[in-house]
């Protein structure tokens, strides 16, 4: 049958592929929403060994790969060399202090391995962290009676966070100077950041440069935007994520 012989009219004749395909895609999208959580876990599991040895970083672009997403609320990534970095420790303490990076690494180190869970849903499994316990820093400065909260600040000038004294003294709350087996990059909040293992990622303040001990709560940056102050993973922000397992010393 010659091509010219056909009397088909475009738009009227032929197979309604479009309607079927669009409905099919809507169905596929809905199915993806319903089972995506499980599929994503499998993808992340499958990719983890590849990402670990992939020098190009391309495998990180595959959706669903367990990877960090970088948030910065200011116009650029704050950058500071380890040698220039200082941590001001003040407020209701007996011995206010300004620490250098070397001061921090001379203290007793702790290593933790725990998941990083973001309140928006992504999670990076088994991230190795190294730093010092926040409680050790507080002991070093000597917390005065009546102190109830901490106010933490970032050298980006905008990001702030808060913790209760009880939360700050947990053994899985650290001031970290290494993660993922190396120095903390500026994208991840280096040279020094907070890591609050049992809470959602926004509590783990990046680009840490100040700890102030206070007698009142001052909600942090994201908390002003509506996120919970007590950000326990799985028990806040209306979420029911699995709390991260913390291992290490």
């Amino acid at each position, binding site marked *: 049958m010659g091509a*010219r012989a056909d009397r088909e009219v475009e738009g009227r004749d032929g197979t*309604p592929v479009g309607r079927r*395909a669009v409905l099919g895609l809507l169905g596929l*999208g809905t199915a993806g929403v319903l089972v995506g959580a499980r599929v994503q876990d499998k993808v992340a599991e499958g990719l983890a060994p590849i990402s670990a040895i992939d020098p190009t970083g391309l495998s990180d672009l595959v959706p669903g790969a367990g990877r960090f997403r970088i948030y910065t609320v*200011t116009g650029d990534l704050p950058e500071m060399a380890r040698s220039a970095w200082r941590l001001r420790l003040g407020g209701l303490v007996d011995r206010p202090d300004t620490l250098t990076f070397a001061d921090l690494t001379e203290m007793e180190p702790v290593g933790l391995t725990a998941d990083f869970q973001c309140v928006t*849903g992504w999670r990076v499994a088994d991230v190795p962290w190294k730093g010092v316990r926040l409680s050790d820093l507080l002991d070093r400065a000597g917390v005065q009676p009546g102190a109830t909260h901490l106010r933490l600040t970032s050298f980006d000038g905008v990001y702030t966070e808060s913790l209760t004294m009880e939360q700050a003294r947990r053994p899985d709350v650290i001031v970290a100077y290494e993660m993922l087996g190396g120095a903390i990059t500026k994208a991840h909040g280096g040279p020094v950041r907070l890591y609050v293992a049992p809470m959602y990622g926004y509590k783990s303040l990046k680009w840490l440069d100040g700890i102030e001990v206070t007698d009142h709560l001052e909600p942090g940056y994201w908390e002003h935007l509506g996120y919970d102050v007590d950000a326990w993973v799985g028990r806040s922000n209306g979420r029911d994520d699995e709390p991260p397992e913390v291992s290490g010393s």
Partner: protein
Amino acid sequence: MTAPARVDTLVGDRLVRFDRAERWLHWINATLVLVLIATGSIMYIGALSGLVGRRLLVRDLHVWSGLLLPIPFLAVVLGRWGRGFRSDCARLGRFLTDDWRWFRRRERRFGDLRVGKFNAGQKVNAILVAGALPVMFGTGLVLHWARSFPEGIRTGATFVHDWGYVALGLLVAGHIVKAMADPVALHAMRTGLAPARWAKATHPRWHDEVVGEPTADEPDEAVDHAEPGDHDHEGALDPAGGVASPTPYDGARSDQP
């Protein structure tokens, strides 16, 4: 100034490929989608996130562009300007015998295939985009109002939105590359008009449908076409030039819902 040109009619030596509403819809939608892809990329790719920063501004731009996305479509479909758009949707949505054959051909333009107003590749791209946009819109709503949805649904929506970003990015990139490769087609989306000679060469079934030549055995009657760009749309629609009579199929299409 002049009556709005109806799609699939002859104006002088040119065919009306897209009416005014379709062109406005295309360029508004293109702007929104490009803003969505750009801001989405900034939030999705860590290296870009660090470079641009301003998380909240980027997020708000993304959310607002996304929320605006259906409005131009609704305006065209629900308003009285949707004639050309609906007619073209019907064309894009149905595969003729020659469309199936198109996929198997290496040489598509100069063979015996009678390609319609849109070739099968354009149809596939349009159909996939038409399916992907509502999926991205829906999952985007879940992500934005995440607190109203259970955890599993939110993770699932993130998963679909991420994969949709990759798929839609490839579709849009393919569309832009193809459009850049054919200046006449690009010009048609700017002015609405395409030279009859181009239509005859690349979309013969459409050309014959509009011009009213059922077979291609007769000599090429296409008038010399001027360089695209030296007429603007309004000028080409001068009443003296005359708007061609409705095509034989016009009646059938006007019955479309």
